[in-house]
């Protein structure tokens, strides 16, 4: 027996939309069985995971907050992945962005007088720092042909350790009993809240704007076309005269900048100080979000929301049903695998053919 993949001539919009939905259903089914085995009613689990988080204003805000950095980073990554460039170091670019922007907040702590410039300067610095950090693997690839997959991944750990060192050492709050965290930022260095209850902050708008902008660029501009062409057919792109080096640098700049911006938005929005870790793995989750969303900005936005819902639902399940966090993790892993698999069915006709494997 062998598995044959026959490319479909045209991807129908219907199947493209249906396949993740089916994958989701399959994951819920498997998850339901697991939950039942643990002695919990699957219906109750489904309600707690997926319905309750969507039926309450507070958790809707939290979903938006959780989804915003994921969508922002994943949108940036989509530029890379469309061009077949594998930046998997967004986590590092996120951390460096948060660190660099945070340093400005700490340096200006307690400033009297005009402070209106601090927040924009932080956002700009964070973006540029993420961008610059992404330039390392990009330049290594362009100039020396070094695999960007591995260098970008390695740089994640370097960035995390750098932040750890800075938060425990030079940036430590002098009045904080030597505990490893910086001063809490002044209000001038914080993103404003959008709604009563001090939950939803302006970072969500930043992310939304970035996703919209990306949708325009990818869909309507020559640059977006170049990206897609390079990814689909590097040879054709070369014939058309598109510089591969320039595109590589551009794609990394965009994804690094987006991740850096997400980092400083998280620090200036939710956290409000620097600490040894500032990311619960957003940079890696965003890679998955980018693929779940099929590298399209709108899809990414949806995918980020789905991941956010399962995370917040997972917390509710721990509280209300005593379901362990590991179950949520396993479920997320399963869901991603199934969505990736289902995606294949929209691109190919999958057939089991008798005969030796080829």
């Amino acid at each position, binding site marked *: 027996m062998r598995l044959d993949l026959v490319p479909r001539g045209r991807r129908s919009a219907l199947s493209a939309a249906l396949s993740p939905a089916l994958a989701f259903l399959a994951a819920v089914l498997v998850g339901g069985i697991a939950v039942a085995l643990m002695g919990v009613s699957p219906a109750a689990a489904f309600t707690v995971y997926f319905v309750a988080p969507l039926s309450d204003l507070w958790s809707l805000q939290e979903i938006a907050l959780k989804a915003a950095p994921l969508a922002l980073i994943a949108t940036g990554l989509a530029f890379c992945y469309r061009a077949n460039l594998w930046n998997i170091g967004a986590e590092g670019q996120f951390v460096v962005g948060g660190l660099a922007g945070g340093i400005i907040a700490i340096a200006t702590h307690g400033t009297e007088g005009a402070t209106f410039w601090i927040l924009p300067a932080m956002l700009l610095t964070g973006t540029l720092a993420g961008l610059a950090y992404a330039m390392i693997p990009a330049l290594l690839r362009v100039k020396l042909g070094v695999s960007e997959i591995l260098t970008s991944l390695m*740089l994640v750990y370097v960035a995390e350790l750098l932040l750890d060192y800075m938060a425990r050492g030079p940036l430590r709050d002098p009045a904080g009993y030597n505990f490893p965290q910086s001063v809490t930022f002044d209000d001038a260095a914080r993103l404003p809240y959008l709604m009563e209850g001090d939950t939803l902050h302006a970072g969500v708008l930043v992310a939304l704007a970035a996703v919209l902008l990306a949708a325009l660029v990818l869909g309507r501009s020559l640059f977006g076309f170049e990206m897609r062409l390079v990814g689909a057919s590097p040879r054709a792109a070369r014939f058309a005269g598109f510089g591969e080096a320039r595109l590589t640098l551009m794609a990394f700049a965009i994804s690094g900048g987006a991740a850096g911006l997400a980092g400083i938005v998280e620090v200036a929005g939710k956290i409000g100080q620097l600490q040894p870790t500032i990311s619960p793995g957003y940079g890696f989750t965003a890679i998955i979000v980018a693929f779940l969303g099929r590298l399209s900005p709108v899809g990414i936005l949806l995918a980020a929301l789905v991941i956010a819902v399962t995370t917040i639902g997972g917390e509710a399940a721990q509280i209300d049903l005593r379901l362990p966090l590991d179950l949520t993790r396993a479920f997320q892993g399963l869901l991603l695998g199934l969505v990736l698999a289902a995606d294949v069915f929209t691109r190919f006709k999958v057939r089991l053919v008798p005969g030796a494997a080829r």
Partner: protein
Amino acid sequence: MSLDLIQMVLATVLAAATPLVIAALGELVTERAGVLNLGVEGMMVCGAAIGFAAAVESGSTLVGALAGIGAGMALSALFGLLTVGLAANQVASGLALTILGLGLSGLVGAGYVGLKREPAPHLHLPVLSDLPGIGRLVFGQDGFVYAGIALAIGVSWFLWRTRGGLILRAIGDDHTATHSLGLSVRGVRFLAVLFGGACAGLAGAYLSLAYTPFWAPAMTAGRGWIALALVVFASWRPARVVGGAILFGGATVLQLHAQASGIGLPGQLLSALPYLATILALVLLSLGRRRGGSQAPAALGRDFTPHR
């Protein structure tokens, strides 16, 4: 330094390098076939959990090690089905595998927290193991260490001395050409993925059965990622994997020794060294390549569908 101290340090380095060697050799074979499996950490931690659980239930370290291998293979089979069978993206699938593995290991291991087993037995030969200076180092390790060394030799022999190895490397370098020659690209890749999973599972089982004989959540503590770095650092060559693992393991162990004897360095810098070293190795490799040195498998990470 006395001879005994040197031997003890070297024995520690060897033990620290073993899980890295085993996991990295598996990943090396997978990558040589052109598949990038980023899920090493997930397979390793599952190998640790399931290996420990099986060893407790059966009372046998060997059964535990086999169960660890089985767990790694089962997860890698899922990965292989996705990426080799269905041509799904390897990077995303590998990350999904990591999350799945961490979750599953926690679920399986929950019942085994706080239990302990005797560590896997060490070899003891009547005269040889008591030789001063080298006896314990060479003749007094546990079975996993010898398995790791045998694995390195075996993989090296297979890749460069057998027809199968040649085919595997050819597929990793150019799947389209090998496919048109009538070779089973996907079959070989799937087997390579399974081998990688088996090794990662065994490496995880080593941690929970021999190195620190208990189960604790996320006890692999990032060793799967180091193994990935190591493959690149070693420029996809088994002997260099062993050398690199000893270097990585040695750096950690030696810095602990340096601290114990009163010389301190910032821990973060030392922890960052393996990653920085890998980047440096990549750069040097690519400079070397211009003079005809070795390089990464050309088809690494690119998916393949026979009808393209």
